[in-house]
């Protein structure tokens, strides 16, 4: 019996030791796990803030992180995902270029065992990304719409400058604003065009609209980059006293213009909240958590002259 026990225990010990060595060896040299941060474009300061917040929080949590700039190009984004999936990244913090087009990239990552956490922009899926943190743009623009009616009254001519068609944020923001203004038949939308979320494009579009529309009372822009371009176009036309501008984002220059009475209001998003939370969720995933809310709306706030002092660019004053 002693001989049998001795032999058995020795075999167990050898097997365990072998397995342990294999496990240790397969882990490779001790290295920091790393996150990939994929951003739609770093050409917009708002996304630079998103990216930097994700990077900082990832580092604070003990991860190396690499930022990839898709430059608004879905093909580039797909190539980045190839690199990331083969590059040993523990998680992806993702700001998609296209709500439909980016689904395939997220799915590939999921199938490769790399979790994806979306920031600011969603993909049209509840099954592929682990979690998606998206500003509650609809509610924010509905609140902006209510303030618009309060300030502008119940009738007039207005213009809408939309964002990129492939970004659901365009339709969430437009939908929220329309959910209020369309209830007032006195308000007539005289023009609606995309400024592609870009300052220069929006300025050109507004130039053109100003030439064809002699009576405009207000412009709603789906982001502040466009609001800046639109304001510039209006100023150049000499009609800045008659046309009021409303934006979305909480960008530094528009906040300043609100203080100067040049822009009426914007809606503050919180890129740092979304980025930090995405990094924290990725960290929780690495540590074993698996149940996350799939879609998480993140509250936003209307910023106007009388509450401007509560805010700073891209966030609230602490």
């Amino acid at each position, binding site marked *: 019996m002693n001989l049998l026990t001795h032999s058995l225990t020795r075999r167990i010990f050898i097997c365990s030791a072998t397995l342990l060595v294999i496990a240790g060896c397969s882990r490779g040299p001790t290295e920091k796990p790393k996150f990939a941060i994929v951003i739609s474009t770093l050409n917009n300061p708002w996304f630079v803030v998103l990216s930097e917040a994700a990077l900082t929080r990832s580092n604070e949590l003990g991860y190396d992180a690499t930022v990839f700039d898709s430059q608004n190009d879905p093909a580039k984004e797909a190539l980045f995902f190839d690199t990331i999936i083969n590059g040993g990244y523990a998680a992806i913090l993702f700001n998609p270029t296209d709500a439909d087009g980016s689904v395939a990239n997220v799915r590939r990552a999921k199938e490769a065992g790399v979790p994806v956490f979306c920031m600011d922009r969603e993909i049209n899926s509840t099954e592929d990304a682990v979690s998606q943190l*998206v500003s*509650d743009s*609809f509610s924010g623009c509905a609140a902006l719409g209510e303030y618009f009616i309060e300030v502008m009254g119940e009738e007039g001519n207005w213009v809408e400058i939309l964002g990129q068609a492939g970004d659901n944020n365009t339709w969430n923001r437009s939908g929220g604003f329309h*959910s209020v203004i369309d209830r007032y038949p006195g308000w007539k939308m005289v023009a609606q065009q995309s400024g592609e979320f870009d300052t220069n494009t929006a300025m050109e579009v507004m130039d053109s609209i100003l030439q064809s529309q002699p009576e405009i009372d207000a412009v709603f822009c789906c982001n502040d980059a466009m609001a800046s371009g639109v304001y510039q176009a209006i100023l150049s036309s000499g009609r800045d006293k008659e046309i009021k501008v409303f934006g979305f984002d909480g960008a530094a220059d528009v906040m300043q213009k609100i203080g100067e009475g040049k822009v009426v209001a914007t809606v503050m998003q919180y890129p740092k*909240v979304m980025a930090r939370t995405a990094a924290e969720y990725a960290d929780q995933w690495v540590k074993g958590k698996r149940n996350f809310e799939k*879609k*998480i*709306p993140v509250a936003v706030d209307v910023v106007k002259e009388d509450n401007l002092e509560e805010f700073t660019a891209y966030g609230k004053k602490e």
Partner: protein
Amino acid sequence: MGSRRLVRWGLIAAALAVLCYFFPLFHIVRVGDAAAEKIDSAADYLEQLWAKDLPASHGRAIDVVELVTALAADPQTATFGRKVGLSDTRFYFARGTGQITELSGAKAMLRIEGIDASVCLKLGILTGSAVRDAPGLVDVNRFARLQDFNALSGQLNEKVEAEVIGPIREQLAEGARVAFVGCAQVKGPRDLSPLCLTPVSLKIVDEATP
């Protein structure tokens, strides 16, 4: 000799257990969380929600006396309220009776029975997502696109205007007693002065005495 061996193997086993904790040989992964059932038809979903789920939930609405009392004690109270996503906005689902003290196209002020407090019922153009979010019936995780989730807000508001407020509007008068079930959206202290609810059920209990 036997006990020494036992101790030695016990220590080795303990060491192995610790090492396996830090270098797991395998992970247990749940085979996909039960994915929330997707919504195939937005129109069918709206009808089911409006015609069946929402009326069936009226009994779960908190007594407005309890709610107003709790909010008076602590305006930040989490009791009875719910949130959606990362937000400080709270939604409340409440029922009660009250007498109309002021009436306009936009709202009716009610003196609540059982407490020295007033609430208002919204009767004008409805905006916001109180009806969608206060009862706790709509799960944002079921929507592949937030646009569809958002569209529900406006659709439900239009239902309330057409089917709850519209049929009864002409009969409302100052002095009338009404029973209601309503939804409130509270972003901050201003929304508590007074608490305003969007009615999803509104009945006249006693008409105003001429």
